[in-house]
């Protein structure tokens, strides 16, 4: 990293470097620790007073219940399908549009880009009901079509990102391709897209996670049978009398989050590099 020669780090330096980090990590982890620990408790231990911190017997059965009660695999597949479809569509569409904004001057471009930025400021709730009315009018409720349409329309956030990214590409690449006779679309596919691996991946992951965790829109637009895991989990973990089973819910949360955690732990260097290359600071 650094070329300068430095003395070996002193104990004080190490404490300074790791200390605050450990404190912060502990603070962040406490609620997560509570999730993990609650997921292994019996219902009676969950809300016990005086408080029971660690379960007396690890209730792995909660995880079984979490999978069974929510029909976990099926709804996880729904979530993956929905999130994946949206992520792929929105990234490709946003990249294309971002490329358009970055490289192709024409009257009205800057004004339209300002409009794009303005849409980031619209409160979601304003659009909520009218969007539902529109989707229902066209018979698109209880289907995944709204997400397909949203994906095809691009995300202002992602378009902004790609526009910044592509704007920093050297123009020589464009010119070289043009000389070879390539039109704008071919330039996009031959020059821009191949060089955007990390940016595409990073954006795709953000978009995937957005749909994966969304609760509001699937509740409104999807039916009980084809909804996402996030919604399903919020309702499924009840005992036969309708009492919520918080311990099983926590087990469900762990299962919900674990694959993402593993993936992120593996891919995060990738993600960070992806955002770096978009040159967001510019």
């Amino acid at each position, binding site marked *: 990293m650094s070329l300068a020669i430095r003395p070996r780090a002193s104990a004080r330096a190490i404490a300074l*470097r790791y200390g605050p*980090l450990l404190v*912060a990590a502990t603070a*962040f982890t*406490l*609620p*997560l620790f*509570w999730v993990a620990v*609650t997921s292994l408790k019996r219902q009676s231990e969950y*809300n016990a007073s005086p*408080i029971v911190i660690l379960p007396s017997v690890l209730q792995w059965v909660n995880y079984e219940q979490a999978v069974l009660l929510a029909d976990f695999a099926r709804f996880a597949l729904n979530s993956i399908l929905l999130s994946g479809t949206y992520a792929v569509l929105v990234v490709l569409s*946003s990249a294309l*549009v971002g490329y*358009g*904004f970055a490289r192709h*001057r*024409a*009257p009205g471009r*800057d*004004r*339209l880009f300002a409009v794009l930025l303005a*849409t980031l*400021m*619209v*409160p*979601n*709730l*304003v*659009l909520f*009901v*009218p969007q539902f009315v*529109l989707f229902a009018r066209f018979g698109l409720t209880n289907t995944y079509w709204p997400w397909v*349409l949203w994906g*095809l*329309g691009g995300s202002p956030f992602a378009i902004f990102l790609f526009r910044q990214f592509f704007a920093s590409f050297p123009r020589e690449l464009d010119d070289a391709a043009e000389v070879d006779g390539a039109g704008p679309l071919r330039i*996009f596919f031959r020059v821009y897209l191949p060089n955007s691996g990390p940016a595409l991946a990073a954006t795709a992951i*953000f978009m995937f*996670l957005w749909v994966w*965790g969304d*609760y*509001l829109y699937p*509740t409104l637009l999807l039916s009980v049978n084809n909804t996402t895991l*996030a919604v399903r989990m*919020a309702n499924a973990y009840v005992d036969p009398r309708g009492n919520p089973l918080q311990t099983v*819910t*926590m087990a469900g*949360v762990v299962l*919900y*989050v674990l694959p*993402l955690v593993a993936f992120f*732990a593996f891919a*995060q260097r990738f993600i*960070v590099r*992806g*955002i770096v290359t*978009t*040159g*967001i*600071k*510019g």
Partner: protein
Amino acid sequence: MTAATGALRHAAPRSALWRRRGVRKAATLYLLISPWLLGFALLSAIPLALALLMSFTNYDGLNLEYVRFLGFDNYARALTDADAQHALGRTLVLVVAVVPIGLVVQLSLALMLNQPIRLSALFRTIFYLPYVIPVVAGAWVWKLFTDPSGGLLNALIGIASPDVNIRWLVDYPTVVLALFTIWGATGGGMVVFLAGLQGIPAEYREAAMIDGASRVQVTRFITLPLLTPVIFFNLVIGIIAALQILVQPMLLAPGIVGLGPGTVPPSDNYLYAVHAYITIFVHQLFGYGSALLWLLFLVVVGLTFILFKTSRRWVFYGVEP
């Protein structure tokens, strides 16, 4: 940009070739951005217009039988609505509480993680995790965590000073809401900061250190100034998001975790979007609710404008390497 093109058009000879190329360029642009244009028109512009239209009526969301045009009545009412004023006040309080602290947390963590340390991947995952946990589950966790009788927080405090039984959600609801929000949002912002930090060439830092600057001085005089565009980005996004917070206070409200009608946050957490939501879905005043939300939109636009205008003072769009 358009002025320049316009000037060019007048200056250059009006050859058929040039005009064709201009048309072709425009066609290219509009074709390329057509997915967004269509999507925007259908999924944003039209719903937004409908919402604006609704805000001028007394639409109750149930049927169109009784719709009446009310002009600006809804807006006049919104400006004198004591609940809306209270809600806006609480929302601004929350923005002030959450955004600066959130930024500081995200930035500090990013700075700390940008150093060569062991297990950086583990730390990053820990801080990113709450961002990934679905908000409903997060609310369960925090409600439980802060429960006076069965919660871990009071148990830990009890180790230090027993018999202290703080009713967090009753007496300090905004504190819990702020902590929950910051906890959940850190992951996203931190990753963006990390990326920004790694975009700062190492040469700058090394040059300064060779000249004898300490790490702190490097951070203060080199890293942070170069990072201001990213800070600005996170600031704007953060404020826009904070002004619209709806789900977290509803889920933390007393009683069962859920978003059904009948859920009412305590008055300290009665935020603006909560007020709009209750107005629309409990009192069935879609028209009035839309007016409230349009006013929020104007506030957001106004604040963003101010932010951009004042950004010239402190945001440093440095030289690209």
